[in-house]
C-alpha cells in the first residue's frame, strides 16, 4: 500500500553516532526486517520511522513524499512495541478501539471494527478483560489488533516476539506474517533473531554499528553475504582464509585455500585478501581420497538428528559440519570433505 524509502538517515546522541547513513527501501506490501545485535541502530531506525525520534540528517519518504515534518500522531503508522505498551486501565476492547475513539468515529462503527479486529487475531470473548488478566501471547495480539484496526499505511514492529516463550513465538510469528500479507501492509520488523528474520521477511537489512551492512533477500543474505559479519550473524558458518585470489569474469574467482585450488563465485570486485565461506550444509564427509579437503576429526557429537563434527584441515583451519547421524566418525580419524560448489562463496576480508 505504500512504498517507503529511507535515505542516508543519521542520528547522533551527545557523543554516540547511533545511525551513520542508513538507506533502505520497502516496496509496497513488503516486510522488511532490520536485523542486528543490540546497539546496531535497528531500533533507532524504527523510532525515526515512527516519529518518536528526530533524525539529524537524511530523508524518509512514503510514496515519494517526505514525512520528516509530520509528527508521530499524524503519520498514520501502526506501531507494535516489545513490551506491548497496552493501556493498563483500559479493557482489551478499549485498547483496540482507542485509535478509533481518537478519530471520533460513531460508537456502533467502533464496536463493529473492534469486534472484527479481535476476530482477526483470535481474541473473541476477551474484550472485557484488562490487559493484566490475559497471557503474554494474548497481550501481543491485542497490541497487533490495536495497530491494525486503524488500517495503517505502514506497520512498525519492534522485537514483538522477544518477551514470548518459544512455542508462542512461533505461533504469533506466523500470525503477524499472515495478517501482514492478507492486508498487504508494508511493514518494518526489528529483531536480533536471525531465524525470525529469515522466515518472515521479503527483504533483510543486516545492520552493523549504525549502518546497513547488507540489504537483500533472506536467501542472498544467507548464501551470498558481503562480509563475514553478515555471514556470522545469519547462521552457522566456516571461514577459510585464501592464499591467492585470481578474478576472472564478474564475480568468478580461482582461489587457493588450505592447499587446494578451487573455482567459485563470490562478491564481485574483490581485489585484496579474501576468505572462503562454507556453510555446514555445503559440506559432506567422504573418504580422504575423494574429498576436496583432507583433515582430521577433532570433535564429534551425536545430536540425534545429526552428527556434529569439527575437522581440522592441514593448514590449521577448523571446519564444522553436520554429518548423517549413522556415519561412523571418531576423533583422530582422517577424512575427506566434499564441497557443494554452488554453496561455496568468496568474500573480501573486512576488518570488523
Amino acid at each position: 500500500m505504500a512504498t517507503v524509502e529511507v535515505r542516508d538517515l543519521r542520528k547522533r546522541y551527545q557523543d554516540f553516532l547511533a545511525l551513520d547513513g542508513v538507506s533502505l527501501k520497502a516496496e509496497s506490501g513488503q516486510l522488511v526486517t532490520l536485523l542486528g545485535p543490540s546497539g546496531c541502530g535497528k531500533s533507532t531506525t524504527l523510532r525515526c520511522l515512527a516519529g518518536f525520534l528526530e533524525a539529524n540528517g537524511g530523508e524518509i519518504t512514503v510514496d515519494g513524499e517526505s514525512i520528516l515534518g509530520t509528527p508521530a500522531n499524524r503519520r498514520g503508522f501502526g506501531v507494535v512495541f516489545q513490551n506491548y505498551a497496552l493501556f493498563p486501565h483500559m479493557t482489551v476492547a478499549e485498547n483496540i478501539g482507542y485509535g478509533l475513539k481518537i478519530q471520533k468515529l460513531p460508537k456502533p462503527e467502533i464496536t463493529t471494527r473492534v469486534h472484527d479486529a479481535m476476530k482477526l487475531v483470535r481474541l473473541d470473548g476477551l474484550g472485557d478483560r484488562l490487559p493484566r488478566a490475559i497471557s503474554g501471547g494474548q497481550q501481543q495480539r491485542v497490541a497487533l489488533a490495536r495497530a491494525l484496526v486503524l488500517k495503517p499505511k505502514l506497520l512498525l514492529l519492534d522485537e514483538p516476539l522477544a518477551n514470548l516463550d518459544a512455542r508462542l513465538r512461533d505461533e504469533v510469528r506466523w500470525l503477524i506474517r499472515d495478517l501482514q500479507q492478507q492486508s498487504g501492509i508494508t511493514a518494518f520488523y526489528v529483531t536480533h533473531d536471525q531465524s525470525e528474520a529469515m522466515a518472515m521477511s521479503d527483504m533483510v537489512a543486516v545492520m552493523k554499528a549504525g549502518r546497513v551492512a547488507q540489504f537483500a533477500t533472506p536467501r542472498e543474505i544467507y548464501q551470498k553475504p558481503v562480509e563475514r559479519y553478515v555471514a556470522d550473524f545469519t547462521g552457522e558458518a566456516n571461514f577459510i582464509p585464501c592464499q591467492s585470489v585470481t578474478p576472472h569474469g564478474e564475480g568468478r574467482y580461482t582461489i587457493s585455500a588450505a592447499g587446494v585450488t578451487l573455482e567459485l563465485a563470490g562478491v564481485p570486485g574483490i581485489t585484496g585478501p579474501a576468505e572462503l565461506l562454507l556453510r555446514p550444509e555445503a559440506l559432506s564427509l567422504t573418504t580422504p581420497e575423494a574429498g576436496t579437503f583432507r583433515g582430521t576429526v577433532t570433535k564429534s557429537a551425536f545430536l540425534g538428528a545429526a552428527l556434529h563434527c569439527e575437522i581440522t584441515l592441514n593448514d590449521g583451519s577448523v571446519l564444522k559440519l553436520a554429518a548423517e547421524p549413522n556415519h561412523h566418525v571418531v576423533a583422530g580419524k582422517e577424512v575427506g570433505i566434499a564441497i557443494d560448489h554452488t554453496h561455496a562463496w568468496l568474500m573480501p576480508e573486512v576488518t570488523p
Partner: protein
Amino acid sequence: MSEMSNTFPHQKPVNIGFGILIVLLYVFLMAPLVMIIGASFTNGLMIEFPPQGISLRWYFEFFDRQDLVDGLLMSLRIGAVTAVVTMTVAMMAAMAGQVISGRLSGWYQLGMTLPLLVPELLTAVGLLFFLYKIQMAKTVMGLQMGHILMSFPYAYVSIAAAMRQVPDALEEASQSLGATGWQTFRLVILPLVMPGLAMGGIFAFINSFDLYTISLLLKPLGGNTLPLALFDFLTYEFKPTAAAAATLSILLSILGVALVQKLVGLQRAF
C-alpha cells in the same frame, strides 16, 4: 489498621518479635490520638484522660466560639485552594521532571523538594520580606502563597512517584494511534497517575491544615487559621474545646484518606 496490613499482600508472615515491635509502634503513634479524642468527649472542665463522663458539650462550645469557627473556615478554605493549586503545579512539575535526564534530574528533584529541607521559619521570614516588597504582606493571598509553597513538595513527591510508574512506551503508543499530546494526557497519563495525584492533593491539604509557623508570620490582619486560633485559645483557657477542635481535625484527615480509598483505592495510592 487492618487496611494497613493488607497493603503488602505478598509479604510472608513476620516473626513474633517483629510483630511486637509493630504493635508497639502503633501504640506509640495512636495513643496521643486516642487520648485527645477521648478527652474531647469529657463532661468535666479539664482536658483529661480518661474523660469524666460522656458529653458533646465541648463540641457545642467549639461551634459557639466565633474565633475558633472563623479559624476553621479559614483553614478549610486555604487548604482547599492549596490542594487544587498544588496538584496542578506539582503535576506539571512532575511531567517536566520526567523528560529531564541525567545529572540534571537529581538537582531538579532536590529543587522541587527544597521547601521541605529549608527550616520553615527561615522560609517564613524570607517570604514575609518578599511579600512586603510586593505589597502583599498580611493578606490572605500572601498566606495562601506560603501554604502552597510549603505543601508543594508533598504533592510533588507523590505525583512524581506515580508518574515514574507510567512507561514512556504508553505515551508513544498513544501518539502512534493518532492522539495529540493533550488527548494522551487526558486519556492515558491522567487516569494512571490519578491515585498519586489524589494522594498528593490530600497530603497538601492536610499539610496546609496543620501549618503553624508560616501562618503565624504571614497571617492576614484580623484573620487566623485554626492552629493559630487554637494556640491563642489554649494560652488563656485550658478547656476541652481544644480537644474537640483537634478531634475534628483528625476526623477531617480520616475523611481525606477514606476519600482516596473510595476513589482510587489505597493500594494503588502508595
